[in-house]
């Protein structure tokens, strides 16, 4: 009984330990980088932010599930997502409220919700990471997504399994953009060409950058930049510049409907989509691509205006994803 009393006492003590925050942010992007931005916002405004993070190692179920489960009694004020499709799905479940986004005026319209529920910023591109020691001849290097199906590269290419994350978004966008028949031909072609299906984009980066294994593969620019920073002989190919273009997937930010600190949430969201934060994210290890046309970025970050970005509809992609997910699970989940 004494133990029980001691534990109950400790629990009551713990209950009083919760810090009073002026803002609750749910953040699905790299904690190491986003923490710097959160601290900067705190310094500027004096608003204490309680941030809750996720991990892609667990399929990013944490924050999305929490936002859905908490919808009747919201705890979060802002959702900063590292991609766009889950944001659109949550919008469909009426989790977000409308905002006018004054600091995002010059971000391209295709990355903004027409209804004002979310804004895209600081993007990642779906690029081909190429090991320049495994493919030494520049003329022999891939330049298109279809090269993953080319017999020249049989057994030499890699891609993450399209069951979660940006690879799932990418494949769903292909279904929505190219049509289902052509997208299926791409998946079948990759299988026939013995493409190495890895656990994640990071795993693709590691296996391409390493001494053995595939010579190139689809990954995100942030993963490519990890390999570059670590000194591996890799280069990024922005695929299909003569075709549909390179898929670009932005971070997104949205205000949670009924969140406890609406005014501070607005300030934080405006801060996030500002040019200044895009510049910080571009200079960070994840090397995000700014969507503000005049944002400065280091040399390793290719400006958004310097390559052809694929025209894809995130809303249609989100709808397509729900439809094709069982098929993808059947193809890759067994």
């Amino acid at each position: 009984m004494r133990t029980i009393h001691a534990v109950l006492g400790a629990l009551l003590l713990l209950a009083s330990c919760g810090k009073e925050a002026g803002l609750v942010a749910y953040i699905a992007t790299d904690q190491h980088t986003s923490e710097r931005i959160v601290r900067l916002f705190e310094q500027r405004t004096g608003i204490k932010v309680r941030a809750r993070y996720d991990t892609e190692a667990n399929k990013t179920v944490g924050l999305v599930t929490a936002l859905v489960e908490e919808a009747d009694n919201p705890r979060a004020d802002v959702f900063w997502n590292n991609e766009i499709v889950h944001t659109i799905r949550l919008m469909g479940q009426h989790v977000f409220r409308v905002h006018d986004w004054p600091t995002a005026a010059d971000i391209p319209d295709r990355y903004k919700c027409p209804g004002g529920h979310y804004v895209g910023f600081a993007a990642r591109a779906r690029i081909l990471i190429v090991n320049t020691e495994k493919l030494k001849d520049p003329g022999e290097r891939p330049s298109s997504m279809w090269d993953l199906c080319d017999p020249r590269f049989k057994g030499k290419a890699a891609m993450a399994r399209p069951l979660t994350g940006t690879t799932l978004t990418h494949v769903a966008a292909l279904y929505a953009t190219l049509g289902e028949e052509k997208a299926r031909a791409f998946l079948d072609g990759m299988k026939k060409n013995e493409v190495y299906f890895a656990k994640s984009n990071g795993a693709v980066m590691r296996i391409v950058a390493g001494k053995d294994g595939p010579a190139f593969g689809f990954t995100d620019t942030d993963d490519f930049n990890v390999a570059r920073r670590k000194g591996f002989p890799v280069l990024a190919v922005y695929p299909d510049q003569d075709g549909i273009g390179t898929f670009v997937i932005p971070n997104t930010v949205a205000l949670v409907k009924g969140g406890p600190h609406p005014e501070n949430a607005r300030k934080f969201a405006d801060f996030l989509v500002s040019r200044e934060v895009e510049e910080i994210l571009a200079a960070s290890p994840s090397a995000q691509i700014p969507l503000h046309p005049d944002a400065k970025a280091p040399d390793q970050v290719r400006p958004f205006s310097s390559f052809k970005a694929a025209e894809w509809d995130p809303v249609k992609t989100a709808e397509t994803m729900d439809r094709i997910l069982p098929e993808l699970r059947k193809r890759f989940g067994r």
Partner: protein
Amino acid sequence: MRGRRKPLPPWGTIISLALFGLCAVLPLSWMFLESFFPDGSFGLDAWRNILATETERLQLLHSLILGLCATLFAVLLGSGLAWATFRTDLPGRRLLGPAGLLCLLYPPIVTAMAFADLSSAKGLPVVALLLAVSHAPFCIALTARGLRSVDGRYYEAALLARGRLRAELLLLRAVLPDILAGALLVFVFVLSNHGVPEFFSVKQKTWFVYSEAIFLRWSAPGKPGSLRSAEAVASSVPLLLLTGLVLYFCLKARRRGALVTVTSEFRPLPSRSLGIWKGPLFVFALVLPALGLALPTLRMCLWAAGSTANFGVSLEKALDSFRRVLVELSPDLGKTLGLASLAGLLVCALGLPLAWASVRRKRPWIEALGLLPMAVPGILLGIAFVRAWNAPHSPLRALYETPVLCVAGYGTRFLPLGILALANALRRFPASFDEAGVLAGAGFLRRFARIHLPLLLPSLVSVWILAYILGLRELDLAVILPPANDMVARRLANIVHFGNEDVGGALAVLLCFGAGLPLLLRILLTGRAGEAAS
């Protein structure tokens, strides 16, 4: 002459049961009930879709096969190591036994990542072996406990009367329930793991398991009460039934395992000379500590030293990585260790009255009911907590974002281990001890404090250590429960995912050190590996 005292109401049991019901039984029951009413009206649509596709059926079969293979490996490695270190004159046995137990310190995914750096092997055998290594400490601890509980006089009598082979068979029969209980625990933990199978699944060597299918369903959840949400809840039922069935047998095995008596004449089993087998068995005994402790520690240290970059490793880089973790992440580390400690205390505080009621008050259903949190997937338990503690009219709302939710969640998750271990410990003490106290006129509290608590203290410490270590490893609850968000297991996954293996390696080693500290202290104090976790 003193009159007979009126028995006290079992307040400890009542309070513990109430808390357990509030934390686990009610929220989970409500979730399952809700799944029969998708979109507000009664329907079995969600339940009709259970195992509806060939992929799901195959994944369940994969789970079963993986569970069996990993369990077999774990028994061979774990029980084998326990036997070698407890029963024989194996060189270095005093170190090898505890080293095998320390394999529990690293989360299975860290062991998997360390192994993946060394070998390109994929598929079922690798997944089964690594999961076996991570969970073999259950087999070590329980087998050691079983061997320790057998009175050496019986063994020697059998040896004299029936010969070596029959004596060994008798011994095996006596220890079998403990070995079986350890094996079944391994099976349950392997069934719920999805990270390691996914990590080693590529190309043709895929080994997707059912727990991953459950997780994928929650990656695109519907609102509570919707058909999609109901389907996600219902999809966990096959795994729940399978785990429940296994835990039931585990319970039976633990009950049969009550062979020991605490008497002053008790004599431990005699040690056997290995003779020419000393060398080969020494190598065998090294396998588990090498794979589960030395390999991850070495790889994580190399990560910290910059081995994942193309610039080579250096001591300066390693020191810098450790310094960064200590400077930047020490608040999270401290909070993690603190919350895991409190969760361990909660497991002891709730587990003891429940185990007591089950064993001493003859309420075996309490022990069976107590297994529920381990039978459901961690994510489902987490969501049940979110729904119950964040409901608009819930009295627990005020505690939702406080560490209390985290302690309650983790405590509930690992409560079954506490109940099982403490119930087993209680069965080992003869009722005559308590009867002597009653005859002497001591009240319940006095008997409990003077007789039972000293006898139970080693088991309570072991339960606390086990819950503490498992709390540090838990990832599913860490991504769902808001205050658990600072737990280092989640942070570690995030850091490694975003390519910061140098910091991740240093953090994993420090986490392992933090997890191992109480276990090491316990082993140093008692000098017995088996006792430290059984």
